[in-house]
């Protein structure tokens, strides 16, 4: 029943997405509660990105609904889908100013300084270096700064660790935890790097071939005395994993 858990920030009801004759997502029901760092896990082509695009409003569902009523209004949701959405010919500050314009934020200089500090890019405050000359890690962090400028309640990140070096991954991880704990931001993160997700996620959704197989809290996985990889293979691989445990 809708509204049965007021702590949720996103709920989907029988969410389905077809591309011509291919069903990318099949009756998916997920619940993301306030304060969660929700790890969305699945193989390539499982439907993670489709689910993220549907929740972000970028795609129109074939059927089913998405309940975001507890999220709040305009600007409460931020998302980085696939690659950072930045204007490459503009500086970091100009990108943030454009985002402020879209959000209707006036006199945003203080806010820009604050978010650049949060993501560790304070050196760019008085720097006109164009975004196209940034490293991937810097672009990711700037995209997160853009996501933060609206003081969102919920941030969606699609494969945020992709292409980052080990230091970049560590910095991202620390940033997510800091934003979750100190700024009360709920996260939905899809990632292939299970060991990294294991360090931040409080809840998991396992998705395969367009179907949500299981939603489970990180605590429950830890209680099972299995690593996240073992648990994932157990859920996704099922019988195959039981037959070939070393594969």
């Amino acid at each position, binding site marked *: 029943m809708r509204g049965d858990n007021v702590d949720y920030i996103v709920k989907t009801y029988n969410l389905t997405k077809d591309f011509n004759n291919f069903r990318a997502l099949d009756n998916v029901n997920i619940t993301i509660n306030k304060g969660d760092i929700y790890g969305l896990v699945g193989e390539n082509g499982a439907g993670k990105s489709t689910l993220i*695009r549907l929740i*972000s*409003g*970028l*795609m*129109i569902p074939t059927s089913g609904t998405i309940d975001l009523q507890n999220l709040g*209004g*305009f*600007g*409460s*949701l*931020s*998302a980085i*889908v*696939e*690659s950072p*959405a*930045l*204007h*490459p*010919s*503009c500086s970091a500050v*100009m990108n943030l*100013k*454009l*985002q402020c*314009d*879209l*959000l*209707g934020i006036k006199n945003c200089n203080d806010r820009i300084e604050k978010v650049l500090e949060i993501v560790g890019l304070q050196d760019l405050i008085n720097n006109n270096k164009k975004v196209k000359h940034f490293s991937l890690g810097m672009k990711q962090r700037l995209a997160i700064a*853009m996501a933060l400028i*609206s003081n969102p309640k919920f941030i969606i990140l699609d494969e945020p660790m992709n292409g980052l070096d080990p230091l970049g991954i560590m910095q991202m991880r620390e940033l997510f935890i800091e934003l979750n704990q100190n700024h009360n931001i709920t996260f939905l993160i899809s990632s292939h790097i299970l060991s990294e997700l294991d360090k931040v996620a409080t809840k998991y959704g396992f998705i395969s071939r367009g179907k949500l197989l299981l939603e489970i809290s990180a605590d429950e996985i830890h209680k099972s005395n299995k690593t996240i990889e073992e648990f994932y293979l157990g859920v996704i691989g099922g019988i195959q994993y039981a037959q070939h445990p070393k594969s």
Partner: protein
Amino acid sequence: MRNILKADFRKYFNGKLFIATIILLVVFTALNAVINYFLKLNNEYTYFINPLTFLEKSFSPTQDFGILYLIFMIVILVSDFNHNTIRNKIIIGYDRNTIYLSTLIFTLTTTVISFLVYSLLNFLFAGLIFGFKGIKAIKVVETLLMYVCALIFYYCLVQLMVFLTRSTIGSIGIMIGLSFLIIIIISSVFTSAKLNDTTIKSLKYVIIFIPVLRLMIPTIGGLLPGLEFTGFNAVLSIFVSLVVSGILVFVGLYLNKKLDYN
């Protein structure tokens, strides 16, 4: 919508293509003035040229400023898709109609202002060279309104193509291909048809009801001095351009609501 427009204009005024547009505008105006001066000096084609023909010519999307402006505008519009920055607008919470309409307002405002400045400068310089004799103010206003409305139609079509193809090459190819195809077809009709009063009257209505043809008049109209639009025909032409533009906008809004953004 105001916020999206603010962001779009800030990006435009800070971009290189805005400066490039101004440079093109100045260069082509100067070039036209120099060419006109030499035509006058050599007394060539001057029976045919008057400042009004230059006003009309300035709106052509297949000649000098027009064709380069078309390419620039498509590059600007597609960049939002190429860099995925259009996602930011959707994710923040703007509905798709607001995004489409604000983009359209941005496109039409910058386009109409650019072409008005360009056409009036050309008109002014052509007038200084050939003289303004016999040109009535009402005719200038009438011509401007007809061409601006046809331009609005053309750029409604440009935006629709951009939102459907999301490709720079695709949109440029379609728009330039379409423009030249129309010129070829109309030129063929003109050269093969018997140009009596009935033919010209029929062509007038074809041009009225297909506004994009109006922008090709510098070519067509030049061949047919009798193909003038005044009074009722001018008003009808303006009205039809606006109605057809409105239909294009509704088609764009409808399709934009159905399409996925990757």
